[in-house]
């Protein structure tokens, strides 16, 4: 067999390995229900959950707590997922400043001790700016 064929086979094997590993590392969008099931099964992989903030009839956000003067690295809020399941979420970072204005929130993390511990929050805001942020970088 020619050396170039052996290399070709190795490259293809590596490419397949990359695809497998990407599939393994890829996260999924789930509901809180599924996130809780995963936690009960002892599966601590991180998932994405899409939801909206819990609001009272007047449109005020309910269940949000951030007091930087006590602990600047503790932010908690209640998120309602697409199945209308309400879940308390904890984020060990300062509160994102435009949080209240967001229409939709995407969080990444997992359920630990009955709370969802988020390590990333992505906000979808109605403003035109957020959608076209950093335009010129490409």
């Amino acid at each position, binding site marked *: 067999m*020619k*050396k*170039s064929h052996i*290399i070709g086979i190795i*490259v293809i094997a590596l*490419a397949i390995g*990359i*695809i497998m*590993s*990407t599939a393994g*590392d*890829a*996260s*999924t*969008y*789930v509901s809180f229900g599924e996130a809780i099931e995963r936690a009960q099964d002892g599966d601590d*992989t*991180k*998932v*994405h959950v*899409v939801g909206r903030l819990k609001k009272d009839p007047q449109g005020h956000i309910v269940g949000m707590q951030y*007091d*930087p*003067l*006590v*602990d*600047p*690295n*503790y932010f908690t809020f209640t998120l309602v997922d697409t199945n209308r399941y309400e879940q308390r979420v*904890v984020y*060990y*970072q*300062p*509160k*994102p*400043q*435009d*949080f209240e*204005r967001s229409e939709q929130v*995407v969080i990444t*993390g997992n359920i630990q*001790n009955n*709370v969802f*511990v988020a390590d*990333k929050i*992505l906000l*979808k*805001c109605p*403003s*035109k*700016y*957020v*959608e*076209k*942020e*950093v*335009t*010129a*970088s*490409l």
Partner: protein
Amino acid sequence: MINTLIGDLGHVSVIIAFVAAIVASYAYFMASRPAVEASADTSWRTMARAAFYVHGAAVVAIIFFLFNIIYEHRYEYHYAWSHSSNHLPVYYMISCFWEGQEGSFLLWVFWHVALGIALIKFGKKNKTWEAPVMATFSFVQIFLTSMILGVVIGDFKLGSSPFILMRDAMTDAPVFKMDPNFVPKDGTGLNPLLQNYWMVIHPPTLFLGFAATLVPFAFAIAGLWKGKFTEWVKPALPWSHFAAVVLGIGIMMGAYWAYETLNFGGYWNWDPVENAVYIPWLVLVGAIHTMIAYKRSKQGLSASFILVIASFLLILYATFLTRSGILGNASVHSFTDLGLSGQLFTYLAAFTVLAIALLVYRWKQIPSTEKELTTYSAEFWVFIGAAVLCLAGFQVLATTSIPVYNSFLGFIGIESNAALPADQIAHYTKFQLWAGIAIAILSGVGQLLWWKKANKTSFKDAITVPLMLTLLITSLVIILSNKFDVFSFKLDNPVYITLFIAALFAVLANLSIIFGLLQKKVSLSGGAVAHIGVALMLLGILFSSGYSNIISQNNSGLLYSREFPDEINRDNVLLWRNTPVEMGKYQVSYHGRFQEVKGVPGYVNQELLFPTDDPYKAIARGAIKAGDKVYHETGDTLELHSPENIYYEVSYESLDDSFVLYPRAQTNPNMGLLASPDIEHFFTKDLYTHVSSIAPEEKEWGELKEYEVAAGDTIILNDYVAVFNGIERISQVPGVQLKAGDVAVQADMKIMGERKNYHAHPVLMIKDGMMGLLPETIEDLGLRITFMHIDTEKSRFKIGINATQKDWIILKAIEKPFVNILWIGTIIMSVGFVMAIVRRNKEGGKGSDQKGKSIPRRKVQAA
């Protein structure tokens, strides 16, 4: 008045550019038919050139009209309104130009025109290439100009014009129903994050890189088309170098901008927008290597075809990813969706299908050799290097495309909920780190084999010195960093040690080649220089990301909850104004808010600025000084650069050094808090600081407490000792026009704070028979002092005090060791590339050559 003329002229220019591109494309196609070429009939070519020049002139005209709309603040046009504003300086108007999709397409189109003309002009020696190469160029221009065509036929929309009037863009807005001639007074402005000098030069550089990838692609296609399977490599090679260096610099400019302006704490975030450009760059660099190997050994021609074509197609794919809106939730950094996704997809699909079909059709005819490569031939290792580059690119591509799989599966009716990896940094690092190690080793080994006689003994001689030195230095660094704490890092992680050895070896091996070439011909050493640059970049990434250290750990013991006390990093610290906090070896304190004033260097304390009705103007409350020089006297009207930008003075003090940083934050009505870091650069590290949260603008004041005092009295105000010195009549009150008969009196108080004494001058005035009170706020102490009453008979005065919570910020500070090496490496790599372009260009006319350059490559690990 609405000026519709200029928009009409612009739109007509777009149409001319579009039609001229079609004509040029057709005429160049006709000119490159074998019959025409053989007959020496130049009429088709003359026509094609004329059409391309008309196209170029029209593109310049479009740019002129669009810039005029922005420059003259013609807010009747949607583009000016949504990207610019009255207060924007000219250099940021340039950034407005390419903030929108249309403008950035225009930039891209412009560079194609510039490169096309360069090819026509400088390709005179070898006229056979002009027609087929420019046919591809013009064909691409048809697609690109169609993106800004803005033609709507029924429901079918072709392109999005930048010359749309407000009333046509916002047909639903009631104001245009009432008055179609309404012109907004001001624009909505440029995204504040883009108001940065890098954003003036980064996009043109990046788009020049985009445009330059078309040149080797066009040569490759021309080679396939005309059956010149081997000749295309020589003219395409210097252009490939040019594309790679410009694209590389463009990417790194973007990385530096992100480092300086955004606050994710680094220069690379594995955001799809960044990845989308990184992938074609890797493949292009791989293509350069196979082309160079082909020039020397006549092997690897098919691979060169594949990689050159792939790099251009990946540029189109990058455009599709970032501009079609397909990334959705996956990226915060993409363009607004203009509904062009169908058109973008057509563009991508057309070129992919045509290029691949042509390649497949000609595949059997591409010459190849049956000669087997030996393990001690340089070309063998160069090919392995190119394969590693492509695999690294493939890995990023496979992950970045996850949102595309979702859309595609959704399109054919399968629901998919795959998301990007939760920990992207770990995911990408897992592969890219090893790719970096492989590249570093291969670049050393490959270069040594390339320049030395390729056999076992001479290779052993060549590798001994660099390898011994590498191992020696590595052992020294490991011992010094672990046992003697000489550095700010401990090199003890085996993976990091491997990368360190590999990169150091690459540097030393390539240095030994440069030393060898010094005696022969230095101009050949471009490859070695570029490889040193890449290896230095790897070292810079290793230290700045691998050993990045958050020094703002919250050690106050005050925690809200102890649900997960151990696992969570608490990376942000609360700083009360003027209360120092220990961070690492530093005493860090926050001293207040500052702003930029026109004509005054540095920053001016906000307490010295009395706001006026115009947010861009303020009145000086005291002498405005910078150093010892007084720039403005009390009462002068000052102009502010940007009133929303507040700089928070944070001082760092330690035994060795002390410095002051001004991290910026802007509370934007649309985007919330936009925090940008301030960075102190040291030779061995950067100290990176940004605010994460700030005290609310609206303060809650406590109850008013009244005090009755006489001149000279001492009182206690909220724990501070204060002296009431007396009162004086004043003739000027900032922000108020005093007329005859009006009286203004100010109290003079001195309050002893923790750090210094403060003077407060609250004003009481009688204006038009009414009493007016102008209280003075001392932000440092959280006090507001009001001069309430004068009892002239008894010479006693009444003052009122409100107290509030002191001002605070929440801060994050990170040490990044040796990040400088990354930037230095970038510059060295670019120098190496330029040396190689000069050399390859000189060779253009000469016969075949024997030398080459190999594997530059860059890996960026997340910060």
